[in-house]
């Protein structure tokens, strides 16, 4: 069998290549294959080779003819196989040899045009058995040779082909048994990478910075075709898997193979498409792994991949954050973080992206401001918009000491403040709180001053806490997953309870970030006045207590700073001395920061409790979750980048899931702490 194999190899290398060429078109190629099968006959190869000289010009003619003859198919090609159409200029990165071969298949591809050009039929297909796999495994362990690798690749391809549902007639092998399939794929994803490395004599990269590309190996030319076939197979496999653990395994394999993908642009593009899908909609581990692969690809070939990938990632981020619920929130969070990582790769490119998208947000806002209609302000007051604001806050704050991105802080702040001031009614308090959180994050980590307090104090001023609630409510309101309160909500007791809690959190959070500022006493002056006024007015003991506590802490901190700065020996103009002083104060700790860290610990405990409570509840309320899943999927299909912000978004508050016994504040910390990330993935809700 080996001998036969060898002969075939020598004879049929062109045909072999053809196959790989077809496969490389990925899942979109089924049409071509069908056509090819029609003309599947063995004919003389001389003509075949001759016509190979026809080269690109001829191919182009064919294509233009095709365009006239069968426009639909041409369109299909345009959509799915750009390389075929732009035949001449693609793949220039590949070697000369490669080019020579590469032209052949294209001349062959359309049997409707060239009846005389054909591929080889494998007369007898070999059925893969467990025994064969064992043999291959052993052989691989011993000495991976190109021939062996080719056999395995062929088998793997056959296996993958079965997933498409049409028997791999053109393959040399056949995989019929599911256990064989399993064994083969498992073998591949376990051993192929090491074998390939050995075969190509690639040493594992020593310093992490530089990736050793397999194309640098002298043996690369010979094995390129097989590698290509194999990589296409992996992508194909990835596209049809559904179970998360399996996907993760394959993704890990793809991660290993990333350097190989980098050498083959077409395969890489297909891979990126799959990765994008996994990143935005997959399970937790697969998301992480997909992100890792994307990151790897971008890191090592920035100039080609970074911009399109960033764009696609942003778009799928926006598409996937239309609905916000306790379950989805961690995923949105994850996407924000990973996107931030991607944006950190090249700040110049990031500036361009951020500039355009922030401007887009500003334009939406301006339209809403000038039109003053319900439809237009709903294009701003939705989850997608808020999550985008938050994303950019996170990006700018994570990439803080950056001269390139620094100028973007100003427009972003202005947009966020403008958003808050657009419809400053009580129904949109939750939205305002989201904005305040984003601003607090941004201002604290970029050391920029942004006035946040006034917007919180306004709430305290506007709401009459003395008024008795119109109705009692069972459920607390989860402010983290709503943007807008219903009219009924506004009358509930839970609304005012939640409001006080939220304000407490937000004020404390903000003052914590400013606690060691030399201007703290001035910063807190209106707050102190307002809180005092509140205590004077308010008759509800439950509300007075936290407010009084807050007031005390703020005043304490204020007097601490005042005392310290009175002893300072420098003037107002001395910026460096002030900076040093602030640093020192920060290190020493202020009363507020000490209190804050205590409070934070407590809070985290509460949140943990909340999560466990939530889990319990989720077990009981499975049907509800399912319903949402269906609904969301439906909507998701329709989404387009165009109408990103157009329709109003929905927020599932899932109040029931957060119900906990005992007195607990029901909030969801957006900022640094990540809650329930691992756990909420387990509930099986796929976005």
């Amino acid at each position, binding site marked *: 069998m080996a001998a036969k194999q060898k002969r075939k190899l020598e004879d049929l290398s062109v045909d072999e290549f053809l196959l790989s060429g077809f496969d490389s078109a990925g899942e979109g190629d089924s049409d071509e294959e069908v056509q090819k099968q029609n003309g599947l006959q063995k004919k003389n190869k001389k003509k075949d080779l001759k016509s190979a000289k026809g080269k690109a010009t001829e191919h182009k003619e064919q294509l233009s003819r095709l365009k006239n003859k069968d426009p639909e198919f041409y369109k299909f090609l345009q959509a799915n196989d750009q390389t075929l159409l732009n035949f001449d200029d693609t793949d220039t990165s590949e070697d000369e040899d490669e080019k020579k071969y590469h032209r052949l298949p294209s001349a062959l591809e359309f049997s409707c045009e060239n009846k005389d050009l054909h591929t080889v039929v494998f007369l007898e297909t070999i059925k893969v058995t467990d025994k064969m796999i064992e043999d291959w495994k052993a052989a691989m362990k011993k000495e991976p040779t190109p021939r062996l690798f080719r056999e395995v690749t062929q088998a793997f391809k056959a296996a993958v082909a079965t997933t498409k549902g049409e028997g791999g007639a053109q393959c040399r092998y056949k995989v019929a048994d599911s256990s064989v399939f399993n064994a083969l794929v498992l073998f591949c994803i376990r051993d192929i990478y090491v074998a390939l490395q050995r075969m190509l004599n690639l040493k594992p990269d020593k310093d992490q910075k530089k990736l050793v590309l397999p194309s640098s190996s002298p043996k690369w030319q010979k094995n390129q075709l097989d590698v290509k076939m194999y990589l296409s197979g992996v992508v194909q496999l990835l596209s049809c898997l559904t179970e998360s653990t399996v996907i*993760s395994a394959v993704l*890990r394999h793809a991660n290993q193979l990333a350097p190989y993908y980098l050498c083959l642009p077409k395969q890489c593009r297909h891979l990126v498409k799959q990765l994008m899908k996994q990143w935005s909609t997959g399970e937790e581990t697969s998301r992480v792994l997909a992100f890792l692969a994307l990151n790897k690809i971008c890191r090592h070939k920035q100039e080609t991949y970074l911009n399109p990938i960033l764009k696609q990632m942003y778009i799928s981020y926006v598409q996937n954050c239309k609905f916000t619920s306790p379950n989805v929130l961690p995923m949105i969070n994850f996407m924000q973080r990973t996107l931030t990582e991607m944006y950190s790769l090249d700040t110049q490119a990031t500036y361009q992206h951020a500039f355009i998208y922030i401007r887009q947000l500003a334009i939406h806002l301006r339209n809403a*401001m000038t039109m003053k209609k319900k439809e237009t302000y709903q294009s701003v007051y939705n989850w997608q918009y808020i999550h985008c604001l938050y994303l950019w806050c996170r990006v700018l704050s994570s990439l803080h000491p950056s001269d390139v991105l620094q100028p973007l802080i100003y427009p972003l702040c202005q947009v966020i403040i403008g958003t808050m001031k657009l419809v400053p009614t009580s129904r949109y308090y939750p939205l305002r709180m989201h904005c305040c959180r984003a601003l607090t994050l941004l201002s604290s980590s970029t*050391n920029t001053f942004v006035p946040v307090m006034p917007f919180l104090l306004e709430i305290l001023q506007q709401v009459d806490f003395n008024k008795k609630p119109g109705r009692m409510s069972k459920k607390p309101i989860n402010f983290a997953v709503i943007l807008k309160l219903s009219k009924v909500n506004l009358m509930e007791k839970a609304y005012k309870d939640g409001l006080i809690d939220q304000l407490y959190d937000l004020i404390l959070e903000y003052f914590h970030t400013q606690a060691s500022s030399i201007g703290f006493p001035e910063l807190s002056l209106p707050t102190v006045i307002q809180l005092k006024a509140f205590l004077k007015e308010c008759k509800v003991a439950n509300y007075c207590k936290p407010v009084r506590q807050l007031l005390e802490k703020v005043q304490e901190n204020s007097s601490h700073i005042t005392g310290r*700065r009175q002893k300072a020996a420098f003037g107002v103009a001395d910026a460096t001395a002030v900076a040093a002083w602030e640093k020192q104060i920060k290190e020493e700790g202020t009363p507020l920061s000490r209190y804050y860290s205590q409070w934070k610990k407590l809070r985290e405990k509460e949140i943990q409790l909340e999560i466990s409570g939530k889990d319990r509840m989720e077990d009981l309320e499975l049907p509800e979750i399912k319903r949402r899943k269906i609904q969301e999927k439906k909507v998701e299909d329709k989404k387009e980048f165009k109408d990103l912000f157009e329709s109003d978004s929905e927020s599932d508050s899932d109040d029931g899931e957060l119900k906990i016994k005992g007195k607990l504040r029901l909030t969801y910390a957006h900022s640094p702490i990540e809650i329930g990330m691992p756990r909420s993935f387990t509930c099986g809700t796929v976005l």
Partner: protein
Amino acid sequence: MGPPRSKKRRPTFRRLLKTSGVKLENKLKNRTLKQQNVAKKQRKEQKKLRAAVKDAAIRTPRPLETYRNRPEEEEEEEFLETLPTDMMEEDDVQQMTAMARQASFITRDLSACGPVHGGKKRSADAVRSYEKVPRKMVRTEETEVIHLLPIKDQRGVVPQSVERVIEKQPEEEEEEEEEEQAAEEPEQSENEMASLTAEQRETLRVQKINDRKLVIASLGSAVVSDPYRNIKRVKELRGMLMESDPSVAVTVRKLVMVSLMEIFKDIAPTYRIRPLTPEEKAAKVKKETQQIREFEEGLVSQYKFYLEDLEQTIKDWKQQKKKRRQAVGFDSYRGLAEVSVRCLCSLLLALPHFNFHNNIVVVLVPLMNDADKQVSQMCCDAFRNLFQQDKEGGASLAAVRVISGLVKRLNYHVRPELLRTLLSLRIKEVQMKKDMEDTAPTKKFMNNKEKRKKLSRMQRKWKKAEEKLEKELLEAEASESKEKKIKLHTETLNIVFLVYFRILKKAQKSVLLPAVLEGLANFAHLINLEFFDDLLNVLQNLIQSGDLTNRESLHCIQTVFTILSGQGDVLNIDPLNFYSQLYRMLPRLHAGAPNDDIIIVLRCLDAMLTRRRKQVTLQRAMAFVKRLSTLSLHVLPNASVGLLAASRATVHAFPRCDLLLDNEVQGSGFYLAELDEPEHCNSQNTALWELQPLQRHYHPVVRRLALHLSHGAPSEGSAALGALSRKSPAELFNAYSVRDMTFNPPVAPPGSKKKDRFGFGASLLDAELQGRVDNAMTTAAVATETQLDFNAAHLH
């Protein structure tokens, strides 16, 4: 309906304020009653006429021949107009001209639009005259057209005028097109109509409307092309206001109203037409003069009747509304009335110099307070524009008078918008203080004695000529009109203040208070000195009552300080209380509150600190600077910029404020940030530490200003402001407004061309994420080692 104004001297303010309200009310009531009576009489007559006309229209069967006739007339007219005039001989032309003049005499005598007749006579034979209209039209048409031709030719104006009409008419119709949509349905189907299907009826209606439009267009163009000859056509056109075919009545009426409005705007002269005295009538005059007189008379009477019609339409609508009777569809009444109001508004603006302007004002002012929002909006806008564009002040005065009467009559239950229109009065330009006029240097001419003493003969001669010339120049310069203007403005403003003061005194709780305070703040520099005492007291009480919103209090403070910074500086009052008020209010004006309040604060500060620097203690100034900087931490960026600029101005006015930049303790005591007394808060013992966070502000301009201030607001050096320093705080506030989401200054390009490096090698920035990634990798690796089931793919 002339303006029957008593020439009695108006009581002065002071007196008005002191005399009892009841007395005043009675006085005004009497006056308005008198007015009303006169108006009522005339309206009654008009109504009678209307009723008669209606009766006639209903009784007489539809004069079908009018439809038939009109198109023919059109054709005829056109035909005649296109006759080649050059075929005529010179003699013929003269003959025809003579004939034409005669004919015009005849027509004038016969037509009903002759010299102004008494109302009663008119109403008596109204029916007959109306009946005449169509028949007469035929005849006049012929004669008129015939004369027209040669005359036009002679003057050589034919092409121009015709062109003008053609371009004018379509646009008019366009604007009217929309109104047709609102036209009412034909409810009363006549016998012939009943037999028709809905479609046919509709087409018939459209056709009718088109016919009418053509008629209107031809009449209108005739009038506009030669108003002196064709003033009678206006009457015909006006006759169409009585259109009684129910299917098209509303539409046609609207069309006619708007067309007439445009026509009057076009042909009305730029002067006021006065009635002729009997002597003048008796005297013989030239033919041209006679023609002009006829035209004027006709115009005035037609204009009057037209205005009466409009008024009547509005009144009908009002009554309809009250009775809630549903006769001809309430909507159509409403539509008609709205169009009338619109016509009146546009006439109000277009012809403020012309006759009957006062009458228009009298009609429109009550409508400003109408329950219908659209109508009141329209009227308020019209008056606002009138005030803005009124240069002489006469029209404004009349309007203000009526407004004040209305406000009083309704016992201050009016819309605030009505009072806000007064804010548009253009009185700021004129210095209306009497003492100013007195002190103004009047040019004295030397008397003879002096001249002889000082000057040589030649010089005297020169001087004489010069003086004569100067005197003439002065006269020509309309210095008289300026005086008149000032007089008018003074009177207007007196009335405005009268309204304001009355409200302040009697109706403090009304919704008008904000408008009043705003108005006072606006005109504060023009208030007479003698009122200051009372006014200050009233405002003081208002502020201390604590019922006012921030904005109202700010208006109070602004009023006080505008007064004091103007002529009030002689008063030597220290309004300490108002300083404390503003000081107390400042922390409440943070970004959560409306941002526009800040602009008033900036205006106040300018008057309080910078202009009155002599009267303000250093303590107070420093306290204000401190609080302003504190406030600038809590407002939107443009307000921050404005406030910082205001502190900068204060620092310049009080150089000793640099104490605030040092960290040294002066004297005893601590700074009491929460104390609301600027004098006693020990502001000398604090420093402007808030400038530090402000230097980290997200807005670039705020950063720059903060840096500038922290270096003591130097005029040169690295911390200097440059071009920014030339703008006032209020200007800066407006320049950096974020209201329409513009980015001023524009967003800067990337700070450097280099890429920033984040993270090293393959590790991620986010440590937690890195952990999770590692975790995922190991999980996946473990999974790979264990048995995996790929069959899902198969089954799938």
